[in-house]
């Protein structure tokens, strides 16, 4: 059995699966249930000044009959009294000493407020702090949350205040509501943050109710932009994670990966692209804490199959495989192949290619079943047919290199090779 225990900035947890700062972690009752279910750690829902929430708070995007492909919320930071939160945090730490307890913070925008809050939280016995520089709704209007994370200078200043006071590890959580997460990331690393976490939620409108004509979530005839999360944001999160994992400065600190993680596979992908551990929220909100069981077992089995003994054996392993377009090998070429024994004649590959790609699939009419074959000379190897094919391994991409040697775009231009090969 592989060892899936995690050590993040010296904060140990039996597995790399933490619950992200969010509704599931805003009180003892939920957190104890999470720990009982097997979660490695939690980031307690953000503490700060007293706020008031509205009703309703959530909305979702469904797709193809599946619920909650994407999810958004307009909930603020914890609306419970600070003292109760602190008391419960301390109790949870005592009851589950082997689990990671991180507390998310968003103090008012002055040094004293931060210092006071940090002092109180450290007294609970929590293992680390996460600075919420990412919340995209409600708090930004008060100069907090994403308003901090979107401005590298302000972010830097706040992190400096925090680092003056904090004696336990500090993670800075980045907002994705920026053109690039790197400037703020660099700025807070310079200011001394011990680690980064990303992404927070993305500003969004999940949809408009076609009867009331009011977007979701509905609050007395109005709505506001909400923070988007769930499976739909995973690809965006992975991209942002990679930019942090590749940057010379930000890659020096550990990263906690967040954004649409639902299964052990998602978690492994985040870790391959540089996350030391992962945080989960939406999936737990959809299915309950029990999902961690398969995450633990699946990760274990995958690591055993691949021969990885510890998490460090694979964390960051894929970071260098994402390169610049100019460095891609232009001589690489592959062509689709349709396995006629597996083909069910649905024609989805054909219509996708015919209408929207390169007219590389030949249709031989049949009643009721047409026959579809690839026209090798026309196929550019775009993958579209394979992606839309409903049958596993029916369409495969076969390598047909243009030439054996590596050739990138710059070299291609230098050699004056023909541009239009159609």
């Amino acid at each position, binding site marked *: 059995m592989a060892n899936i225990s995690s050590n993040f900035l010296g904060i140990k947890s039996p597995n790399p699966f933490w619950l992200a700062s969010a509704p599931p972690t805003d009180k003892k009752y939920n957190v104890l249930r999470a720990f009982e279910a097997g979660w490695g750690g939690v980031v307690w829902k953000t503490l700060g000044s007293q706020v008031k929430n509205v009703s309703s708070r959530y909305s979702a995007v469904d797709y*193809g009959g599946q619920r909650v492909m994407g999810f958004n919320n307009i909930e603020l930071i914890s609306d419970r009294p600070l003292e109760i939160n602190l008391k419960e945090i301390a109790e949870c730490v005592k009851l589950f000493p082997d689990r990671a307890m991180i507390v998310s913070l968003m103090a008012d925008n002055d040094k004293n407020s931060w210092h006071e809050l940090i002092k109180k939280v450290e007294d609970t016995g929590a293992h680390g702090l996460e600075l919420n520089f990412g919340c995209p709704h409600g708090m930004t209007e008060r100069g907090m949350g994403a308003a901090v994370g979107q401005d590298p200078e302000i972010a830097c200043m706040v992190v400096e205040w925090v680092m003056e006071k904090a004696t336990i590890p500090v993670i800075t959580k980045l907002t994705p509501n920026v053109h690039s997460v790197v400037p703020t990331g660099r700025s807070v690393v310079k200011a001394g943050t011990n680690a980064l976490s990303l992404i927070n939620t993305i500003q969004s409108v999940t949809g408009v109710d076609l009867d009331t004509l009011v977007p979701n979530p509905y609050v007395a005839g109005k709505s506001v932009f909400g923070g988007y999360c769930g499976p739909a944001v995973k690809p965006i999160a992975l991209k942002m994670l990679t930019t942090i994992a590749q940057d010379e400065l930000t890659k020096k600190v550990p990263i906690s990966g967040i954004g649409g993680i639902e299964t052990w596979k998602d978690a492994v992908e985040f870790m391959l692209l540089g996350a030391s551990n992962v945080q989960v929220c939406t999936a737990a909100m959809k299915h309950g804490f029990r999902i961690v069981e398969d995450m633990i077992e699946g990760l274990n089995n995958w690591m055993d199959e691949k021969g990885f003994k510890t998490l460090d054996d694979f964390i960051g392993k894929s970071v260098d495989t994402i390169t610049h377009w100019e460095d891609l090998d232009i001589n690489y070429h592959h062509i689709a192949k349709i396995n006629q024994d597996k083909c*069910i004649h649905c024609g*989805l590959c054909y219509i996708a290619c015919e209408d929207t790609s390169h007219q590389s699939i030949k249709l031989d009419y049949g009643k009721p079943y047409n026959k579809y074959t690839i026209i090798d000379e026309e196929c550019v190897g775009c993958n579209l047919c394979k992606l839309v094919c409903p049958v596993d391994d029916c369409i495969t991409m076969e390598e047909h290199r243009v030439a054996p040697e590596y050739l990138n775009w710059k070299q291609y231009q230098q050699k004056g090779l023909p541009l239009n090969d159609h």
Partner: protein
Amino acid sequence: MAILNNKLSQQQYAENFSDIHPPFETHNAALVEANRCLFCYDAPCIKSCPTGINIPKFIKQITSDNIKGSAHTIFLSNIMGAGCSKVCPVEKLCEGSCVFNLMDEPPIPIAKLQRYSTEKAMQQKWQLFERKKSAGKKVAVVGAGPAGLSCAHVLSREGIDVTIYEKENKAGGLMTYGIAAYKVTPEFCEDEVNYILSLGGIEIKYKQELGKNISLAELQKKYDAVFLGMGVGLANRLYIPGEDLEGVEDAIKFIYDLRDKGFSAIPVGDKVAVIGMGMTAIDAATQARRLGAKEVTMLYRRTQEEMPCTQHELDIAMLDGCKIIWLAAPKELKGVNGKVSEIICSIMQLGEPDVSGRKSPVETGATFSLEVDMVIKAAGQMPFEQLIIDNEIMNNKGKIVINNSETNIKGVFAGGDAVNGGREVVDAVQAGKDAAAAILSYIFHAKR
């Protein structure tokens, strides 16, 4: 042993004749199946539907909550799409060619989804078609069955004023009178007809039989064109001794009475033999059982390989407890006091393929006998041969011969069972559409 009516309680009748294919109970239940549909391109299901309904489109429209659009897509190709969703042998048509079959997964329940959209449209009385301004042309349609109604609807949409002459006092043809009651109820058939007629521009004159109350010559004179969609008549005669004994029934009449008079009014024997293995034979056999016959035996002169009904239909009969005897051809019916009491069958074997391409049954010389008190004949139906000959319509053994829906008589068109000898409702609907297209072209473009 006796042929009696009222064998069961009202509750038993209700149970026995309840809907054999219940609809989706909720929108979500329909969505789960609709979402499975792959939305195939040039889909095999469309090609396997005689009316060419754009099935992937109407299913996609269910998933996008455009039920109105979904129903329109169906009715555009098949105005009896609601009825067809209940009576079509989909296992050999659309669902039979669904690509999921090729993955050894259950096909999309196309009929059930079609029923979902069309029933909603009928319940809500959505008028999904608009008539064009009257073109000042009139067409007579003979027979308010699937072919006639389908033809009339297309014509009326194009602004033609249509008059249908129907010999019964209800419309719907075989849908109303010739199909097992556990597939479609009389109320449904009536609703379906009314829904079709709600377009306007179609008048039905009931109790008007061609050759009796009206003549073709008259119709030709009064109308710009005539469509003959009168279907076929009673079951083929067996031409064996004893055929006229009491208790020897015609499947068409048996089903007609059952649909017309109500279950408890229909007498049924204790030991019933049904001759034939087509859809009508199945409908007769299963309904005889459901009316309370103790024993129903289906006799077919060929084997399961050649049977005209689908496996699905055969399964219904077998689940109803009907006995099946293959390679049995009726040779003689014997009776006591004028009532049938015994059927003697030749045991057959298969020989060379005949004109239908199926291996032909050949007598082995051996026979067996069954004790019966009722025999239902369901070995094909007879066209209205005399009527057709009297009107000098070119025909093949009573089946009207057409060329692009037109008969040998100019301006007289035909389609459906009267032409093909007896096929599915869905085939008749398509024949009606084809004829309507030919009639429109004849009225508006042909040099006369």
